[in-house]
């Protein structure tokens, strides 16, 4: 029969070893999680650097189509110099940000969990442009138009400021969705970028089978 000291030592030692073991498992899990999160953040910064480089390499009045790697569950948003809802991170300049979380709560998704790059444009517009598979883009007069024209129209105050993007608006078969372009998978996306003298338009182009019936609020506005 063990004496009291032996029983106490036996239990205490077991408890200590168990506590150390559990602590190590939790520590390892936490480390793995933080490595994964860090990789995601690094990719988000690389994504923004790539966009910034492409915008800076473009001439004024030039547009370009770029293939970019996306990050699942992150979204893109932009603010001009005079946008009142611009987040503090952008300070006094226009900016484009990639953020994680919900576009409806930009404060926490972008200010806390986002990365931004500043630009010198009065107006920055970031949109998602959803094409209807197999259909041409037609304006309200029934004329076929190019994606490049859509891109330029975004910067037209007549359309943009009055926010008349709607089903029966200028684009009858292809629609502009004002919601922040969200990336639902980590794969590739096509971005159309148009750089004007004082304004910048970024369009994420995607394709869907049927027409949109619902529109969300303006992205970041």
């Amino acid at each position: 029969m063990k004496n009291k000291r032996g029983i106490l030592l036996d239990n205490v030692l077991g408890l200590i070893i168990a506590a150390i073991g559990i602590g190590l498992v939790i520590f390892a899990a936490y480390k793995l999680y933080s490595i994964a999160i860090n990789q995601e953040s690094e990719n988000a910064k690389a994504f923004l650097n790539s966009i910034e480089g492409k915008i800076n390499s473009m001439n004024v009045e030039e547009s370009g189509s770029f293939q970019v790697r996306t990050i699942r569950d992150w979204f893109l948003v932009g603010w001009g110099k005079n946008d009142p809802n611009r987040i503090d991170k952008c300070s006094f300049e226009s900016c484009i940000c990639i953020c994680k979380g919900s576009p409806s709560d930009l404060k926490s998704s972008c200010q806390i969990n986002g990365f931004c790059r500043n630009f010198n444009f009065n107006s920055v517009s970031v949109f998602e442009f959803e094409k209807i598979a197999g259909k041409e883009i037609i304006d309200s007069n029934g004329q076929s138009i190019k994606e490049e024209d859509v891109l330029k129209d975004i910067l037209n105050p007549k359309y943009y400021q009055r926010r008349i993007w709607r089903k029966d608006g200028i684009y009858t078969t292809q629609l502009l969705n004002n919601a922040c372009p969200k990336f639902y998978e980590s794969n590739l996306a096509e971005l159309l970028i148009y750089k004007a003298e004082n304004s910048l338009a970024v369009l994420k182009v995607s394709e869907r089978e049927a027409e949109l019936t619902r529109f969300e609020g303006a992205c970041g506005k």
Partner: protein
Amino acid sequence: MIFSKKGDIEVTVLITIIIAIVGFVIILFLFFDFDFGSYGEDEVCKLSVLSRATSPTSAQSAIPLKCSTKKLCLTKDGDCSKNFAGENPKVVKLSGSEDEIAKEIAKTSADAMLNCWKQMGEGKLDLFGSFWTQSGWEEAKPTCVICSRIAVDTSIGKDTLERVDINSYMKDNVIPELGVNYLSAFTGGGAISYAQSNENAFSKFAESSKSNIVLSESRENRELAIVFFQFKPPKYEEVLQTMAGIGGTVAGLAFIRPLVMNPVGGGLAIAGALGLGGYGMWNARQGQLAIPGYCGKFAGSRENIYGCSMVQGINYHTKDINELCPQIEGDF
């Protein structure tokens, strides 16, 4: 016996505990304070591939794949600024006749494909398992790693690009170190393994005629992505095994036991287990059904395939890449 009669710890036990703790600390130190910066990109990638492959399938997605996409610019005197603006490509200057440059482009692409294949374990390693697919909660999807992006600068003419034939190069040329041609080097990986380059590589986008995009740049393709692809959905028995493990663990929890040890709780638990099991089997079946679509054309007459790994050279274009790769892993 751990304790002597007096209640003291036996010397051998004490030594074993000390050695175990010291060993644990050394492993932790190596694992978490490992200086990845002192290693090259390739070594870091290989290490992360091996770490994944040796981890339990359910935990693989939690281990980051530290493989970065290599960016190569092939040029006479340019810098591929249209392709790599904002990125840092390695610029390779090419010179010689049109045929020589075309052959050099094909060689660079074939070497990149071989390097990608080797880094990713030559199709012998399963890299993209996750707890959610392994337990039937999610349907398995093919996963890719973009090993390289190879861009040909506009200083190299269209005529030269049209002469590039990567598939013929891989068939006709022997790798000196291995003594076999490129295509032979891609086989023998246990699972179905295959390598090929898109027939339209470095030519116009296949869909350009249907597209009404007319931007300032012409739509000819000057960029190729070397992609490692793997699709190995879990088998039914693997899903069942994982589910049984989870079910057993949950049911065995002390605070759950009183709930399931009565007729109502037990009935509900059985119904829940059957429902979840059915859902898991349905997801596993969706994965199995998708195999022929992705791997079938490479499997030939082989039946009962459980997945495939391959390296592909594809135009670096959203539609082409996303069609093959619903999800892409690795660093940008």
